[in-house]
């Protein structure tokens, strides 16, 4: 700087640069008198350099935050280092109109200002120069981004709430679907069956006792036969005994009663199955025999099945599967009921084949029917909630969607093969053991 004096030409060049540069440049001395005011400042403030030079900055711009700015300038004079203001924190130093009088935007030009110490040859800071950069476009872009991010966050929040709602709704649907299909069936049938079974069982026990007593009496009469003198009576007894085949009758009667008891026991078992099946609250993971589950489910819906289809069972050996047994039973029931409903009654009895099997760490349960089959379109949509091919009021359209979710929860999958006119086969694959987090 102090080596050789710059030439007049380079001074003129510098002057022209300061004047023309698209940055606001001004300088003040320690008393606040303006020593430099370039064209940018003049254009934007409407005060020419001729008007400004030598004037007190604060007198000319009374709206400036005077104590703060004086302190800022003072720190530059004292420390000899730059000082700054940023548009994000202080939108502007001078309130200048922005560069979009027509297309709109912000209320005033956004400015970053740097205050520079200007030293004389002695090293003393004699002037502080302010450089004003127009950040309006950046500010507008950033505000736009801010708005966009805020909108996104809002949307995200709304979505999160919606997902939570959806989850609740789905749980409710799952629950209500259970209640609708099982609750009705189970409660109704169990109640209806329990009463007659109760008195039949009680009567049968009495009947059994009576029969035993009668047989005892007859046995007691047997030796007395030899003492009957009247040949007519003796002949009649012998004839009746022969006609009745009394020996066989005596043998068969206890068997018949025993078989009736067995039958009643089976009916009780079905009622128990119904109760087991509708244990809605039993949400514990357990190790269950799926073949047994399939059987008890079949018992529950047997009334729906028996006049429409014959059931072939083709069960394989299955290990105990870690599962929510009551929920899987619900899946089996859905599949069996759907299979029955797909049968074309005009073609007589259909066939439903229940098969199970085991492969590596997975077991599978298959329900196959000889029904109408499904079109590609239906196959694609079968797991959608509220999708149904049944007449209005007949199906909720939730069965398959609920089943799908239950199988998902077991980390399993459902395979589907269907041919129009030939039938449909659903195969559920389930892992024997659940992964670490799901277990217990």
């Amino acid at each position, binding site marked *: 700087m102090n080596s050789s004096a710059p030439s007049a030409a380079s001074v003129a060049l510098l002057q022209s640069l300061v004047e023309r540069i698209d940055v606001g440049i001004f300088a003040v001395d320690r008393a606040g008198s303006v020593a430099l005011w370039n064209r940018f400042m003049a254009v934007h403030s409407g005060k020419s350099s001729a008007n400004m030079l030598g004037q007190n900055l604060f007198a000319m711009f009374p709206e400036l935050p005077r104590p703060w700015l004086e302190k800022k300038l003072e*720190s530059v004079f*004292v*420390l000899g280092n730059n*000082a700054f203001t940023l548009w994000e*924190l202080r939108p502007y130093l001078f309130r200048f109109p922005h560069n979009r009088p027509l297309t709109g935007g912000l209320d005033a030009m956004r400015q*970053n200002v740097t205050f520079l110490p200007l030293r004389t040859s002695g090293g003393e800071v004699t002037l502080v120069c302010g450089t004003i950069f127009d950040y309006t476009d950046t500010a507008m872009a950033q505000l736009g981004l801010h708005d966009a991010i805020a909108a996104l966050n809002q949307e995200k929040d709304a979505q999160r709430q919606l997902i939570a709602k959806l989850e609740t709704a789905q749980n409710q649907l799952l629950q209500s679907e259970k209640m609708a299909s099982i609750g009705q069936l189970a409660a109704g049938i169990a109640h209806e069956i329990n009463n007659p079974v109760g008195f039949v069982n009680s009567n049968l026990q009495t009947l059994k006792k009576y029969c035993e007593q009668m047989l005892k009496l007859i046995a007691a009469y047997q030796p007395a036969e030899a003492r009957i003198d009247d040949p007519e009576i003796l002949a009649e007894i012998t004839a009746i005994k022969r006609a009745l085949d009394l020996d066989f009758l005596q043998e068969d009667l206890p068997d018949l009663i025993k078989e009736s008891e067995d039958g009643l026991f089976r009916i009780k078992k079905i009622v128990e199955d119904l109760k087991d099946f509708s244990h809605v609250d039993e949400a514990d993971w357990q190790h269950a025999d799926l073949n047994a589950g399939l059987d008890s489910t079949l018992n529950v819906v047997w009334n729906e099945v028996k006049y429409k289809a014959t059931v072939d069972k083709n069960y394989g050996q299955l290990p105990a599967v870690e599962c929510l047994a009551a929920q899987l039973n619900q899946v089996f029931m859905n599949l069996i009921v759907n299979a029955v409903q797909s049968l074309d009654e005009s073609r007589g009895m259909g066939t439903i084949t229940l098969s199970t099997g085991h492969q590596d760490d997975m077991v599978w349960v298959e329900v196959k029917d000889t029904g109408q089959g499904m079109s590609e379109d239906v196959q694609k949509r079968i797991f959608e909630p509220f999708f149904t091919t049944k007449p209005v009021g007949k199906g909720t359209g939730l069965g398959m969607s609920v089943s799908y979710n239950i199988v998902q929860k077991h980390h399993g999958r459902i395979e589907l093969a269907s041919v129009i006119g030939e039938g449909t086969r659903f195969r559920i694959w389930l892992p024997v053991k659940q992964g670490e987090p799901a277990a217990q």
Partner: protein
Amino acid sequence: MSMEIINSDQRDALQEIANIGMGQAGASIAQVLGTFVELSVPQIRAVDAAEIPATLAALAGDGVASAVRQAFLGELRGEAIVIFAEHSASDLADLLSYGDALDAPASRELLLDISNVLVGACLGGIAELLRAEIGFSAPSLLADQVATSKLLQADAIAARCALLVEVRFGLEKRVFRCHLVMLMPEDAITALRLALDRFIEEL
């Protein structure tokens, strides 16, 4: 903590320069703020990059703090970080002629302003003694009222290790407390070594 980044002569020189620089800085800051400033003796040490966040947290103590960073450029290169304990910075609002009502942007601007004054005075003083030409970037907010352990993330640091010069500030009869930490990355320390050697030779 090993000091292999600079040798013991260089370290002594740097300590002396920092001491003198802080004395001068204290006087300038007092002139700007119009109040007496308490400065600690600068502590100099080398730290691994991974240790920097923990070191800063240890300086700031428990609780929450804010931090401002500012780069210094030129012959000496690095970043200065000023850590403000809790809300103690608002205690200085009147000294820098901020109004009574400090809204959020104004209180952040105040942090930047104080940092600019402290960093400019301290580092400017050191650079001047080393006869090194340096400039400063605009300060920016690194952390605003966060737990001291989260002031700086280790993975945000590009350097492998750094030279750390730490000074504590306090003001008489005020709660204001802050730490100024000057961090120079490993690869910028060669220039510092040269400047220190030059300083030692000229003694």
